[in-house]
């Protein structure tokens, strides 16, 4: 039975259901209970934004507050995954990956290959990303392209509450390391989510709008910007097909290529900085494999090549929006803006 809950509640529900189903699932991270060792409430926070609230009460010691030592606890999650647990580690902000990246890209990501296919590392690293909170340069980045670059990691980018729950359950049940990226602006977004557990396979994009004129490939929070643009453009007679990648590794190449073969036009929307991001990756894919289908040059709509600024005026300028997407679509349609 579906009912409306938020993206944040969907994530919490996925964790709760998986922890109930499988005693090997544990949660660790900074303040995931929030209050360990204090005189106050032992679950004061339930995650810095309350995403894991209630899980400590329900599961006790399987929800572990960690010291602020990302290398140690992300590495511990990875090590525990090789030793029989299925940890879900929360790395508060994706921006903090820098302090523990070795444990992710040299350890977790490489075990399977390096050890000749004999290792399984079923670890999920949940992390929040993205601009929009006035959190500035060190708490707003979109570093998912970095992880997408690394063989051995799976990278998941849910855009809706429904996808958040289904993809997270899939991530927990998956036997590879998964970087699960949650956009902090989306936590309060409501949507229909079934109560029962379900999974969404990785590498299957979601076509959120069908259309014959232009393909818009996007992901994460930008899915909502793109659909807003598509709806506006529809009123002007331009039919956009909006594809939500949902996972960047694996990436659903077939859905992208089929759509571009139908529309002949491509706009890629990615909140990340413009160099070596998902937009460039998708553009390269299409240029490589569907060049003959293209009726117009590919356009990319991305954040600019600057750190995320603090001031609201600047941050709003930084974030791609529906107007920029509409302009890009009109351009590939050969229309004047």
């Amino acid at each position, binding site marked *: 039975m579906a009912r409306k809950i938020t993206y944040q509640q969907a994530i919490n529900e996925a964790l709760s259901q998986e922890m109930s189903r499988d005693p090997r699932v544990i949660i660790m991270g900074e303040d995931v209970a929030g209050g360990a060792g204090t005189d106050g409430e032992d679950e004061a926070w339930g995650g810095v934004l309350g995403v894991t609230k209630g899980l400590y009460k329900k599961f006790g010691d399987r929800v572990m507050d960690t010291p602020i030592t990302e290398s*140690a606890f992300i590495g511990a999650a*990875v*090590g525990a995954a090789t030793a029989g647990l299925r940890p879900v580690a929360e790395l508060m902000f994706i921006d903090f990956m820098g302090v523990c990246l070795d444990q992710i890209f040299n350890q977790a990501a490489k075990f399977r290959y390096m050890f000749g296919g004999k290792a399984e590392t079923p670890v999920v690293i949940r992390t929040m990303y993205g601009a929009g909170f006035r959190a500035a340069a060190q708490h707003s980045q979109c570093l998912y392209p970095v992880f997408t670059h690394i063989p051995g990691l799976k990278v998941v980018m849910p855009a809706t509450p429904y996808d958040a729950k289904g993809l997270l359950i899939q991530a927990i049940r998956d036997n590879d390391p998964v970087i699960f990226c949650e956009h902090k602006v989306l936590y309060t977004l409501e949507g229909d989510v079934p109560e029962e557990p379900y999974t969404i396979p990785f590498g299957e994009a979601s076509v959120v709008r069908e259309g014959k004129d232009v393909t818009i490939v996007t992901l994460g929070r930008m899915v909502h910007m793109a659909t807003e643009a598509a709806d506006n453009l529809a009123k002007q007679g331009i039919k956009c097909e909006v594809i939500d990648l949902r996972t960047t590794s694996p990436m659903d190449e077939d859905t992208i290529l089929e759509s571009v073969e139908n529309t002949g036009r491509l706009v890629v929307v990615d909140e990340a900085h413009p160099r070596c991001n998902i937009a460039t990756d998708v553009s390269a894919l299409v240029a490589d494999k569907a060049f003959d289908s293209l009726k117009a040059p590919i356009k990319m709509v991305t954040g600019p090549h600057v750190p995320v600024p603090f001031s609201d005026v600047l941050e709003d300028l930084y974030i791609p929006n529906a107007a920029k997407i509409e302009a890009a679509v009109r351009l590939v349609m050969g229309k004047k803006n």
Partner: protein
Amino acid sequence: MQLSKADLLKAYRMMKTIREFEERLHVEFATGEIPGFVHLYAGEEASATGFCMHLDGRDKIASTHRGHGHSIGKGCDVDAMMAEIYGKKSGLCGGKGGSMHIADLDKGMLGANGIVGGGPPLICGAGLAAKVLKTGGVAIAFVGDGAFNQGTTAESLNLASVWRLPCLFVVENNGYAEATSSKYSVSCDDFTDRAAAYSMPGIAVDGHDFFAVYEAAGEAIKRARSGGGPSLIEVKLNRYYGHFEGDAQTYRGVDEVKNIRATKDCLVLFRRRVEGAKLLDASELNKIDADVMAQIENAVKKAKAAPKPTAADLMTDVYVSY
């Protein structure tokens, strides 16, 4: 501390196997047939053996660049290890890991590690798994004096202490982090001084003396298994070869290695002790020597003859499912 005759024979065989494996690699590497980087454990055998003798299938270890000894100690197949170092398909990791990444998770060997300080966080995780799953297992991070300065090690000592994990942090101090002396690079006068800062016991043992390592390891492991928490053990030892094969070691004293080999060879010291006390006969130990020589000779022959991986192997083993 009591050791049965079978234990003594097992320990000697383990040390001898490591020694012969490494001495042979030293020779073979010089021929140019072995690709990449190889870091030899010769001289440090009593450490891996002293710890691994106490371990069983529940237990996990993580190793260092210098990981062959720990791998043999934890029961990795010697033929498959040799084949791996030669980059062959029959290698322990299918030729995809090499010397620096030898691992066998089925044996509880979480890998040699190409990253200095890569192991301790993983061992916190392995210890956590043992604790949550109540397996009774312990997890041991072997690190060198170089990794002892890494933030990952410091963080892991803290985390293991905070969570009271069944972990051991074994610092194999051979005096050199690559070519830099630990006397220069380690700020505390004594490694074990750092243990107190993490509220865990810290002890130092002579890594040339199997019996000293074995006993200390046994006590630390017993403590960890019974819920007593982590401990830090500095094993003072020496390496016979350079940081990697091909290292001319001009940073070492002229007769340093010669003197160490003459006075601190853990195998010689072991033999002297058990033969002197008439616990084992020289003939029994000689037989092990001969067995091990034949075993290593056979492993090298097989590794050389084994086929390399094929192009089809390049793209496999990245994901469990993708």
